[in-house]
C-alpha cells in the first residue's frame, strides 16, 4: 500500500515537468497552429541558463526560473517576429520544416558554446525531502511541481485576464475576425510564441535539476509534449495540466510493471494517446469544438 501511495506521489511529482513542457507546446500548437519541433531545443536553452547562473553566481536554481522565462520570452518573440511569421500563411506542414531547421541551429549553437559535457544542477538541498513513514516526498520534485503549476496558473491568467491574452484567444478562435477588430496579428503571434518559449525555459530549469543535460537532451521532451498535449486536449491550459500529471502517472505505473515494464514506456504512452485520439479526439478534458 505504501508502495502504491509512493508510486502515485512519484508519478504526480514527475508530472510537474511534463506540465511545464506541455503548456508552452500546447499554447503554440493551439493558437498558432504550429507544431514546434524546436520546443525541446528551447527547453534546453533554459536548462543551460539555469546551470550557468547556478554555477557562476551560485543562484538558487528556482530563483533562476524567472530569468529563464524572460530570456526565452525575448528569444521566442524575436524568432516569431523575425522568422516564423514569414511562413504563417504557408501550408501547415511547413512549420515542421522551419522549426526542424531552427532546432538544428539552436542545438548546435549550444554545442558550440557549452560543449557536449553532461551538466546538472545539484543544490545542497537536492535529495532531501519530507518523510511520512516509508513514503518520501523529495523537496526538489515537490517544488518543481509547485513551480510548474504556478507557471500554468500564470499562463492561464495572462490568457484569460489580460488584454493581450484576450487578443490571443480571439486569434485562436478566428484569425481573420481578430484582424478585422484591429488586433495587431504580428505582435500577438510573437507574444504567443514568446510565452510558449518562456514556458519551455522554465521547464528547462526544472529539468536541469532532475537529470543531466547536453545540447541534444531536449529531443525526448518534444515527443513527450505531443502526448501530454493530446492526452489532456488541445487548447486549454488546464487540460494540459491534467495531461501532464496523467502522463507522469502512466509512466510511473508503466515502470512498475514487474520485469521490463518501462522498456515499453513509449509504446504504452503513445498507445494510450492513440486510444484517446481515436475514442475521444478532444482529449480527456477537452470539449468538442
Amino acid at each position, binding site marked *: 500500500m505504501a508502495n502504491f501511495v509512493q508510486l502515485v506521489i512519484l508519478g504526480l511529482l514527475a508530472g510537474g515537468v511534463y506540465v511545464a513542457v506541455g503548456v508552452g507546446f500546447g499554447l503554440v500548437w493551439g493558437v498558432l497552429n504550429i507544431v514546434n519541433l524546436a520546443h525541446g531545443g528551447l527547453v534546453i536553452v533554459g536548462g543551460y541558463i539555469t546551470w550557468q547562473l547556478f554555477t557562476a553566481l551560485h543562484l538558487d536554481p528556482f530563483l533562476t526560473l524567472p530569468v529563464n522565462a524572460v530570456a526565452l520570452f525575448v528569444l521566442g518573440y524575436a524568432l516569431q517576429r523575425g522568422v516564423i*511569421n514569414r511562413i504563417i500563411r504557408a501550408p501547415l506542414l511547413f512549420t515542421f520544416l*522551419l522549426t526542424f*531547421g531552427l532546432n538544428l541551429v539552436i*542545438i548546435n549553437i549550444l554545442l558550440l558554446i557549452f560543449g557536449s559535457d553532461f551538466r546538472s544542477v545539484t543544490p545542497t538541498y537536492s535529495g532531501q525531502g519530507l518523510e511520512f513513514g516509508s513514503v518520501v516526498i523529495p523537496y526538489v520534485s515537490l517544488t518543481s511541481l509547485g513551480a510548474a503549476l504556478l507557471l500554468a496558473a500564470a499562463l492561464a491568467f495572462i490568457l484569460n485576464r489580460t488584454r493581450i491574452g484576450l487578443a490571443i484567444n480571439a486569434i485562436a478562435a478566428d484569425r481573420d475576425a481578430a484582424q478585422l477588430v484591429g488586433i495587431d*496579428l504580428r505582435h500577438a503571434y510573437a507574444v504567443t510564441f514568446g510565452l510558449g518559449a518562456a514556458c519551455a525555459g522554465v521547464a528547462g530549469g526544472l529539468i536541469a535539476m532532475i537529470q543531466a543535460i547536453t545540447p541534444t537532451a531536449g529531443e525526448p521532451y518534444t515527443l513527450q509534449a505531443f502526448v501530454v498535449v*493530446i492526452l489532456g486536449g488541445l487548447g486549454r491550459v488546464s487540460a494540459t495540466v491534467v495531461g501532464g500529471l496523467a502522463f507522469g502517472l502512466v509512466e510511473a505505473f508503466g515502470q512498475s510493471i514487474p520485469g521490463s515494464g518501462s522498456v515499453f514506456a*513509449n*509504446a504504452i504512452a503513445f498507445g494510450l494517446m492513440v486510444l484517446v*485520439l481515436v475514442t475521444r479526439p478532444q482529449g480527456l478534458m477537452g470539449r468538442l469544438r
Partner: protein
Amino acid sequence: MIATLDSNRRWRRAFLIVGGIIAAYALLAPLTSLDAAVSANVPLLADRLWFRIATYIAMFIVMATGWNIIGGITGYAAFGNVAFFGIGAYTTGMLIAKAKWPFLAALPFAPVVAALFAALVGLPLLRLRGHYFAVASLGVGVAVGELVQNIDYGGQPLFGGASGLFLPIDSIANRGLFFFYLMVAAAAISIAVTWWVLRSRFGYGLIAIRENEEAAAVLGVNTTAYKVAAFALAAALTGLAGGIFSQWNVFINQDNAFPIEYNVQMILMALLGGTGTVFGPAAGAILLQLLIQFLGGTLPISFDLPFVSETARPIVAQIILGLLLVGVVIFVPRGVIDFFGGRSRLSLSYLRRSLRETSL
C-alpha cells in the same frame, strides 16, 4: 503573353535535356566499375562511395515519394512512416536471418507486410484529421520500433532484440552496383506508381479528399477505402525500401531501421521538392541528401570555412544546414519543383512574392 509561354517552353526543354543527361550519367556511370569495363580501360566514373551515397538517395526517393501519396496527394500528414521502413527491413531480415531464405525470395514480403500493417492501423487512425492524425501516426511509429526491439517469446527475443539482426554477408557479384540498381528500380517504381495514381480515378478521389473530404464523400467517393488504400500504398513502397536496406546494410536494429529522424527527413524532402507532384519528392530527396553529404564533406567538391576551428567545423556545418532549411521554407514555400518544368523562374521577384504570400 505569348513570349512568356515561349520562354517557358524553352525553359522546360532545357530542363528536360539537362535533367536527362544528369540522370543518364547517374545511371550509367556506375557501369564503369564493372570488371569488364575496367579491363577495357574505360575511365572510372563512379566508385563504391558514390554507389553508397546514390543508393541512399534512391532510398530516400522511395520514402519521400511514398510519403507523398498519403501526405501530399491525400493530404494526411503521416508522421510515422519510418515504421513501415522498419517493418519492411525486419520482415526481410527475419526471413533471411532466421528462416534462411534467399534475399530475392524474402524481399517481396517486405512491402506486403508493411501494407497489411498500414491497412490495419489505418482503419482507426485515418478517422483522425490534420495534426491529430500526424501525432497518432507518430505514436504508431515510435511504438512499433520499441515493440520490435523488446518483445520476447519464451524468454528469447523474438526479433533479435537489442542486439539487432545480423544478416549473412551475401556473395552477390558487384554488390554495390547490384543494390544501387535495385534501389533505383524501387525509386522508379515509386515514381511510376505516383504518376499512375495522379492520372487515375483513384488519384482524383484522393485529391478530392484532400481538398474537401465531406464533399468527396457526397460525390460518392468511398473515403475510408480510398484513404486506407493510399496509406497502404505508401507503406508498401516504404517497406520495399526497408527490405532492400536490410540486406544491403547487413545489420539492422532499432537505431538504423526505425530512425525517428527519417520521419522528419522524408517529409522535409517532399516539401522541399513540392508535395502532390510526381517528381517533387524525388527532387527534394536528391537535393537534401546532396546538401547533407556536401556539408558532411563526403562529396568530391567540398568547402572551407574561414575562421572556424577543426573541432567547430562539423557543428557549424549543422548550423548552416539548419539555416538553409529555414531559408528555403521562407523563400520557396512551394518547393523547388516550382522552378523545373517551366512553372516559375528563380528570381528576386519570385523570392519577394513568396515571402509576401506566406507572411503575416
